[in-house]
């Protein structure tokens, strides 16, 4: 945990309360994410992967432990973090441009400069022609790209990606993960990706955390080093080390169909 850490979770526990009782969801989670790093969290379903993102985003409070972003304790949503959900959730009554400006609007930061930046993002990532279109006129992959730009428009340092590709078909998913990885690298963002797709995690990340079953705790950690000239996730899937990582993490996850 050095000064370069943008996110630090220190011995975080979280219990869920319901009339049926108290369920421990996360147990003693400690992690740190360095600036510019791309980290993936994989784990069995229901292990609390998404909960970790909600905690960092300031949507819920931990039962115990500390969460710091850039050295400051998280006490609510901040413009330093951008959250991307599984579905694009573009508002059907807004045009693409109006959708992209949503975050700035909420935060009261619609300035000329911010607006220009957001529109520039649309242009850079091939959506300029669709500014005045409505969401239903776009394909699933394009919509999710708009959702990413909506997140980037508030200029966060840290991106929290909650299975952002899982609602897409396989081809779109591959193409989009490639593109998103490129965008994130180009915009020099730090990213925390939650996924249940092991290949996706290996091909996109610098580091992978494997969570245990509920209550989720960090079971193991892998630093990913794939050899390849091209840094694109699709190409990196062909790296010789890929299979190795896959097998190890697969075993670790201990998936049983019962």
């Amino acid at each position: 945990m050095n000064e370069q850490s943008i996110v630090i979770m220190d011995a975080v526990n979280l219990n869920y309360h319901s009339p049926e009782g108290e369920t421990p969801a996360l147990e003693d989670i400690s992690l740190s994410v360095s600036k510019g790093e791309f980290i993936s969290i994989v784990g069995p379903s229901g292990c609390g992967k998404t909960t970790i993102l909600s905690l960092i985003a300031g949507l819920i409070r931990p039962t115990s432990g500390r969460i710091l972003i850039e050295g400051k304790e998280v006490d609510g949503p901040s413009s330093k973090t951008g959250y991307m959900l599984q579905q694009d959730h573009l508002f059907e009554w807004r045009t693409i441009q109006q959708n992209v400006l949503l975050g700035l609007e909420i935060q009261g930061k619609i300035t000329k400069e911010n607006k220009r930046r957001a529109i520039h993002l649309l242009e850079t990532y091939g959506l300029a022609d669709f500014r005045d279109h409505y969401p239903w006129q776009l394909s699933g992959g394009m919509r999710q790209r708009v959702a990413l730009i909506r997140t980037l428009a508030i200029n966060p340092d840290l991106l929290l990606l909650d299975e952002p590709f899982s609602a897409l078909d396989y081809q779109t998913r591959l193409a989009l993960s490639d593109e998103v990885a490129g965008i994130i690298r180009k915009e020099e963002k730090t990213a925390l990706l939650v996924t249940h797709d092991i290949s996706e995690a290996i091909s996109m990340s610098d580091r992978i955390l494997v969570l245990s079953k509920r209550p989720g705790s960090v079971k193991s950690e892998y630093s990913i080093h794939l050899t390849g000239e091209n840094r694109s996730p699709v190409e990196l899937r062909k790296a010789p080390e890929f299979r190795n990582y896959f097998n190890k993490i697969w075993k670790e996850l201990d998936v049983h169909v019962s």
Partner: protein
Amino acid sequence: MSVNKRHNNDSPEHLAYLNKIKQKEIAVRVSQIAILLAFLALWELAASLKWIDSFITSQPTRIWNTIRNLYQTGELYRHVFVTLYETIIGFTLGTITGTAIAIVLWWSDFAAKVADPYLVVLNSLPKVALGPIIIVWMGAGTASIVTMALLVSVIVTVIGVLNGFLDVSPDKIKLLKTFGATKRQILTKVVLPASIPTIISALKINVGMSWVGVIVGEFLVSKAGLGYLAVYGGQVFQLDLVMTSVIIMLVAAALMYQGVAWLEKRYMKGRR
């Protein structure tokens, strides 16, 4: 890229397809008009050939004459205006009050839980039964009639609109929360706009509801209006007058419904 565009150079096959749709639409419309005309013609014929007693059933030409007479004496406008005025006020008040209550109940989960049994009971109560009470409280006049229209439509609106609010996807709300949205922003940026289709269908129901309220109100207390005309016609055994007022109501209610449908089309533009 799934951009829908109409191309000018459509293939003959596609043109034939479009043509077929168009023809079907025309056939439906022609049949609808034909049924209406046939009904009116049969009614007229049956009355003039004395198959039915036109004193009791009236007949289209007699209704037409009644309308003309009312028009010439200037009474037509007065009655239509009074009823329309009451209906539109009742409709607007019912919709606005209902939506406002729904917003309060959405805002406070506690209030919604407390209000629930009251809403259920009030919803099943025939509001018309409150008529005599309203007249005693509000006096025998327009205020009572408008209140009647308001009461008939308000509870349905509350229930319909609140359900619409609660149907808004929790993930859309989560998205706004990640941007740090306040509860007020969640209401104005997502809950209300997402519920516009629900609110419009509430409006459609309220058109009918407020007409019920106003006509019942006019039956009970009034000196003018289409409901008054119908009751008066019944009392003096002038079925022409009763039928005439019913037909004018039909036309007016249909126009009002069309108005809401037009609103719907305008607001749903661009949505899918």
